[in-house]
């Protein structure tokens, strides 16, 4: 494509980006959630495990409740608002921890597979195929139910979701980067492999990996929520958004607020993350969309 056409194509890009206002509000919301999670101790009007058995199932303030419990209370008279703040903290911890774990595992294995072609690569790709063949939710259900539950195990399992996408993406990008002129140039110069991988290839693929991580993050939140929904996630008295939703689902008919508020927070968080991720993808890495693994934005 001649340079002037490339230019034209680039200039035509802004039209498909989501309106910045939407992305901005999404980012704002994410910031708020993070802030709320971080400052739960200060912000929460009540303790997240603080029971008020005489104030069980209080409706939210605007639906006939009191200002004591702005978003109502649950079956043990615990303040929903406070629990959402603390629950968001757990959810985000699990999601961030899981994403981080999956990211590290996936990219390391991806680098390894690209560097040591042959058996190592085959082994990694086999693991990738296996991971793809066993939906994480299914695996996690079995593991958590059979091995029992703990937060580190939960984070680990949640992290397993998506590592294969990072691995596949990393391997593909490293392989193509290895063919690129700048890596060749560094090899001619005599740079050692670690230097080439860490200092030269990594900065180039980091953008795409970060985008993949932002696109995967909502997935991780939903996975934690789904596991907690089955009662296999975070265990009481600790709480997470998914756990609140899972416990609240039985009361949807008579106390909708128990499930609806945390459910909405999950929904809005995922939504915001998607919007921000999309925007980042458009900005940082327009080619990523073609990667099959990235198809689950």
């Amino acid at each position: 494509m001649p340079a002037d056409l490339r230019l034209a194509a680039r200039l035509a890009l802004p039209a498909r980006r989501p309106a910045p206002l939407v992305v901005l509000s999404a980012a704002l919301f994410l910031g708020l959630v993070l802030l709320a999670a971080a400052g739960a101790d200060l912000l929460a009007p009540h303790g997240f495990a603080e029971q008020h058995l005489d104030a069980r199932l209080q409706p939210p303030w605007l639906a006939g409740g009191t200002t004591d419990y702005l978003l109502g209370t649950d079956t043990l008279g615990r303040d929903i608002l406070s629990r959402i703040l603390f629950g968001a903290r757990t959810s985000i911890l699990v999601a961030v921890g899981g994403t981080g774990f999956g990211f590290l595992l996936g990219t390391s294995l991806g680098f390894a597979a690209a560097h040591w072609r042959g058996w190592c690569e085959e082994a990694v790709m086999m693991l990738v195929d296996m991971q793809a063949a066993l939906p994480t939710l299914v695996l996690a259900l079995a593991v958590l139910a059979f091995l029992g539950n703990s937060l580190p195990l939960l984070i680990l399992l949640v992290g397993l979701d998506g590592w294969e996408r990072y691995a596949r993406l990393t391997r593909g990008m490293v392989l193509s980067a290895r063919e690129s002129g700048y890596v060749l140039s560094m090899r001619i110069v005599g740079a050692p492999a670690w230097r080439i991988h860490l200092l030269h290839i990594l900065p180039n693929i980091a953008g795409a990996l970060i985008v993949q991580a932002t696109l995967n993050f909502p997935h991780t939140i939903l996975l934690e929520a789904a596991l907690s929904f089955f009662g296999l996630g975070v265990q009481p008295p600790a709480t997470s958004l998914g756990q609140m939703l899972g416990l609240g689902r039985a009361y949807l008919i008579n106390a909708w607020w128990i499930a609806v508020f945390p459910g909405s927070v999950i929904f809005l968080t995922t939504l915001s993350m998607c919007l921000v991720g999309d925007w980042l993808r458009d900005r940082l890495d327009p080619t990523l969309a073609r990667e099959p693994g990235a198809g689950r934005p």
Partner: protein
Amino acid sequence: MQQQPLISASGLVRSYRASRAGLLRRGPEVRAVDGVSFAIRAGEAFGLVGESGSGKTTVGRMVSATLRPDAGTVALLGEPFAEPMPLARRAKVQAVFQDSLGALNPRLRIGRQLEEPLIVHGIGAAERRVRIDGLLADVGLPRSLLLRYPGEVSGGQRQRVLLARALALRPDLLVCDEPVSALDVSVQAQVVNLLADLKTRHALTLLFISHDLRVVRHLCDRVAVLFAGRIVESGAVAEVIGSPAHPYTRALIRALPADRPGPRRTAARAIAAAPDLATQDLATQDLAIPDRATPDGAGCAFAARCAAATPTCRRSAPVLRSLSAGHEAACHLVAAR
């Protein structure tokens, strides 16, 4: 004047598999380079010409020690390349490749990329600064460029950056693989001139790989013509271009666009053969195209396209024969002449 060549390649062979193989899958093997030998004396500019797929880039990669030959050796001042290359020897051979955008890391500032070879070779920070200033002066780039990213500068400037980086380690041999073919004519002329200057100023030896005989004619002392992974003709530039011996060399020269408008030349000028046999394409396995996967030596690779091909040509592969001092060609017909 029997001086030891700076670099010598002998019997280089390199094959590729047509598709990337999995654990068990094997693609058909294609010989990209099939027994290439040459020697370059210090201070000489050696041109390697050929069409796409002729194997010239593969030769360049083997000579720059980024690709191991399946067979044959490359020797620097008589000493063959070892694996891994000691850093000091690494520095002696540097290279510049065609795609100037790809050859620069898009995420690193140009200054950093110029510095990188010096860091790898353990040169101190102060010394690095001095050297980089010198390099910038050498290739005619402003210091302000150091803070820019490769995407922010023009193609000509990038090519100069590449040259500067390649020169940073003060190499003896500079391998240039199509360094100017992606550039516009006006810029191409600038870079060709720069290369000629650098060659003189730093007593550089050049392996200049190009498909453009016109540029090779300007820059090189000697030239080798590569076809289907083999050298079909080599010699002093003036002689090879002035009186080409091999039918392929002649076809190449005839196919060049005119320097000045003249009477229109027509189809008669084209290589006499079925026109769609004209190209070699590694990626495809069109049966009509001479297949380098066939057993070695089964005929001259050019025979299928050669108007003068005889049964002998199809039976046995010709070897390089000396025609005059330094001028060699691999053709049965030339020998018969």
